[in-house]
């Protein structure tokens, strides 16, 4: 008999790459703040207000949007954001 106690792993067996979070900036002064709209209904209302508040305080804000909330953000968009802003505010969902 083969050993019935040896099982085959049903998982993806992926090594999850451990990534260190970037250090939280001590201050937002001089930084560019990204705001990412994931295209969830009425998310823009909240994010517009945030944009307004941040801009009034003199921060530089850049806006981004996903084409649809149902899919992950396109790679090109993610790469663009990573090169254009220092911090990002992203609504996750409901």
């Amino acid at each position: 008999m083969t050993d019935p106690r040896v099982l085959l792993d049903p998982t993806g067996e992926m090594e999850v790459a451990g990534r260190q979070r970037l250090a939280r900036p001590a201050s937002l002064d001089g930084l560019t703040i990204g705001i990412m709209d994931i295209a969830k209904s009425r998310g823009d209302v909240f994010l517009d207000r945030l944009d307004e508040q941040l801009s009034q305080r003199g921060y530089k804000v850049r806006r981004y949007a996903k084409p649809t909330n149902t899919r992950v953000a396109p790679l090109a968009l993610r790469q663009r954001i990573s090169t254009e802003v220092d911090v990002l505010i992203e609504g996750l969902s409901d």
Partner: protein
Amino acid sequence: MLAPPDGLVLVAKRDCPTCVLIEPVMRQLAFSTSTVTVFSQDDPGFPSAVGGVVDDRHLEASYRLNIEIVPTLIRVQGGREVGRVLGWHRGEWEALAGMSGLGAGLPDSRPGCGSLSVEPGTVEELAVRFGGVTFAARRVEVADRQDEIEACYDYGWSDGLPIVPPTLVRVHRMLQGTIRDAREIVGLVPPNLAPCSVEKVAINAVMAGCKPEYLPVVLAAVEAVLDDAFCMHGVLATTMYVGPIVIVNGPIRHRIGMNWGVNALGQGNRANATIGRALQLVIRNVGGGKPGGVDRATLGNPGKHTFCFAEDEDDTIWEPLSVERGVLSGTSAVTVFAGYGLQGVVDQLSRTPESLAKTFAACLGAVQHPKKFLGADAFVVMAPEHYRTFREAGWSKARTKAAIEAELRIPARDVLEGVDGIAEGMPAAMAGKVLTKFRPGGLNLVRAGGKAGLFSAILAGWAASGERGSVPVTKEIKS
């Protein structure tokens, strides 16, 4: 096992009346020539009075010699088999042995018995032990005193119900259900976008309780949900109830014994129950999609354990779903739909198609919310007694669908936000428009259910149905 030496090779077992009958013949051969190798499958003391019987209770020689019947007599020359006789046939034995006068007094022939190496379950066991079968998946050893099923829970492999431990033999047996290479990559499974091989699908199919003949259906279902148009990542991640619903068409429904009749959407049929479950286990285990992780469903639905059924194709007036979606008639296919449910359609009084179409429309109007339009798709599962009303009136599927959709057109002003004292509804900007409940192609009709009962069902779809989210995907089932 070393290759048998040149000469005669004889494989037998005591638990075979023919082998016992010809025991004197085996002795005759053993005494007359030094080049007879006898393998005994169940008792190294059999045949008696024959020296050097090789103990083959582990069946390695029987497997490697591809023995199906005992006794089997084989002639080996130059390391290669040149002749074989199954069972006892005096003339053939004498010819192969190059001897005469074998088994004087015995009947001229007797059929043999089945070899122990081909007993049910043994073939795959031997293939794994001796046949060079390899697996790409990591091996996980369960501790000596640990319960295997509990261990699978501990590893996080279960959907909450007990699973069948995926042993090497079970997975090998499952892989016999397809001609596809176990290493073939079926696709990338979200959310981790993990490459998923046929072998990984087979492992999860074992755990779900599938039979090998279901594997092609599971593979097609996996391929269907991994089609970008289905948007499996979003279907998994959404806070809505949805999960993949699998609908099977074509001759494979018969071959694997699926249910499209009584209780078609319920419990009790192994194929229906385990195919849908295997698909969900692939998402969970290969893709890493787990509730509370990327699966953010507020409530989910019981169909996220399994939701799979076959369509009733016994009546040919309404084309099956697969044919409607471009698959050749007579070809097996799966269609996946991001949905949940069911919501009942109870109408015991309508006897005209016009009345019944209005009933379906009225019930479909409640999908998501009576005041929400153009969001979710829906599948109607029409029971035979409702279907009869349309069929007897000569209504095609297209006509029936059109009649239902016509009833679902409504002036937007009646369903705007705030109308009827309900905040929910369509945006005020739509005032003045006429709305349809479903996007073009968003309403589908399939048939299933027991012969009695004027009870159909609606399976509602994701609020993000359509191009921006998920559309139903159909895939042919390959072998």
